[in-house]
């Protein structure tokens, strides 16, 4: 655990004069991102955040808090995607909120098939559209809302850093 100062400064690679609580890195990271290789966001390395951002053609904001770092991507249509990265550099949770549902296959990476299968089973058990709640021992997915206002999250319980309350991610 770091100090209890809450949100601390970001990205040590930046000059010390730019030690801000939040840093906008949109264009620089867009230029770094290469054409899309195999994507892996949830459960993947921190580098996958940049791939997601390039895919969504969004702007990126990075915030470092206690025990994890938040990467916030604003995608087309102003949907906000947050990816939470552990000190080990792994994406252990993602959340989204806004008028359009982001591309889940891309954000969930290797967990995409788990989501597809579970959602299919739930849909087939009863017709209709409703919020989705998938609760597996190592994978949790929740999504709700209505046209032009959606939000949800997915996380990997085993990878949540010690001491972090997954219900209170910022």
């Amino acid at each position: 655990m770091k100090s209890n100062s809450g949100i601390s400064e970001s990205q040590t690679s930046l000059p010390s004069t730019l030690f801000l609580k939040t840093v906008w890195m949109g264009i620089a990271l867009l230029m770094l991102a290469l054409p899309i290789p195999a994507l892996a966001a949830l459960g993947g390395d921190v580098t996958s955040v940049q791939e997601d951002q390039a895919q969504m053609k969004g702007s990126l904001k990075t915030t470092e808090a206690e025990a994890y770092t938040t990467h916030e991507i604003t995608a087309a249509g102003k949907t906000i995607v947050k990816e939470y990265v552990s000190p080990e550099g792994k994406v252990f949770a993602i959340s989204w909120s806004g008028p359009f549902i982001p591309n889940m296959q891309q954000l969930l990476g290797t967990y995409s098939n788990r989501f597809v299968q579970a959602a299919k089973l739930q849909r087939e058990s009863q017709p209709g559209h409703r919020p989705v709640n998938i609760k597996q021992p190592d994978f949790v997915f929740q999504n709700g809302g209505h046209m032009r206002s959606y939000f949800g999250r997915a996380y990997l319980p085993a990878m949540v850093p010690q001491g972090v309350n997954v219900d209170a991610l910022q």
Partner: protein
Amino acid sequence: MRSFLVLTLIGALGFLVGCGSSGTPAGVVLSVQLTPSSASVNAGGVVNITASVANDSSGKGVSWSLSGVGTLTSQTTTGATYTAPATVTTTSVATVVATSIASPTVNASLPITVSPAGTTANVVPISVNGGPLLPTTIYTNAAFVSVQVCATSGACQTIPDILVDTGSFGLRLLASEVTVPLTPITDGSGNTLYDCVQFVDNSFLWGTVAPANIIVGGETATATSVQLIANPSFSIPSGCSGTNEDTQTLLGANGILGVGPEPFDCGLACDPSQQGQGNAPTVYYLCSSGGSCNTTFVSCGTICQDANPNQQVTNPVFNFPVDNNGTILTLPQVNDVAATVTGTLTFGIGTESNNTIPTTATLFTLDSSDNFITNFGGQSLTASFIDSGSNGLFFPDSSLSTCPDNASWYCTPATSLSATNVDPNNGSTTNTVTFSVDDFDTVTQANPTAAAFSNLAGPMPCTSSPCTFDWGLPFFYGRSVFTAIDGTTVGTTPGPFWAY
């Protein structure tokens, strides 16, 4: 002096007309206007129509034609009388066309909706009856309606079993159910306009966008974009991912009638005026016949301050000539379980004697995402909403267990729960709702053929992102829920709002 000027102008126009090969002077645009611009009558009804032609220097006026039911009499170059048939068995539409005699390529049309005698034009029956997949599959807590769809050529068909959804905007139909010739919108360069609606459960609707005349009850929305759901011959772009619900089996309905509090499925975010803000959202696509697709902006018309006409998939109610500011969805009380229930969908709020908001109702204005606040279990759920297209009540309650086989439903019964809805803008208008929760597995297995369950509920995520109480169809049992559309007004109160 003034009369001299007028005479000079007329003389100049006469000279120009004399030079034009078609009788229309260059630079002067003829146009035909009809009064009224649309009409609804019961069987046997009469509509007196007048025509005026702007810039018709020859004063030749119009000639008339009629397609559909009824007769057109007393035809002159400035007027005609439409008489509906003495009886019609279903609501029908007739189209009167007035064509400029001086310039026969210029015309105007007037759709007239003819309803059976004794029906009320702005009310249509709805039914919670299990849906079109019976008896193999029952769609619980879903309200269905019949909609008439007409091609602009005038051919009409009635499509039953369409889901009434106050959580979306616009009419979406399985293309496989549409037999009238609807022509998708193209860009003039060989590309066709497609629409993608992504749902929260990894399903989506993909299909072309085509204008149609939509008749619901006795109301007609003319030239309104609808989505025709079908799998294309090419791969659907990755921005629209999951399962395309392009069959009745997958969708559980023949279509979705989105009558929520917005006029358009995308709105300003998809309007070309937003091009400077970045890429188009993954909603509208232009696709070549070879299947090369790119997201595109599509005008949402006057209300988006766009001079181009609206071509987005549009809430048909918004395009009705009258009763176009919202809806009332009314269903009877259900005490736990009912085999089926029937109710009404009424168009317009405060526009007729049958659609006023009672003084006992509470009116909630909405935030910019069309949500209000629900206080429940010590939590302030700031992204809460009313949605007839959700087939349960969905809210976060850690004391209730989800079902072992389906974590989207609660399997713990509970009684005497209460939640308080709060207006997000004034913070002071409130209304408290009491409700119960059944064990989903127990109650649905004990009533395998019932369509209406008042106590089905499931969880919703409550995270650092906004928390939600989704008041689905069970909320409508025993209530009339008013949904006012953004961009319209009810008296002096602007939409969007809900009242119940």
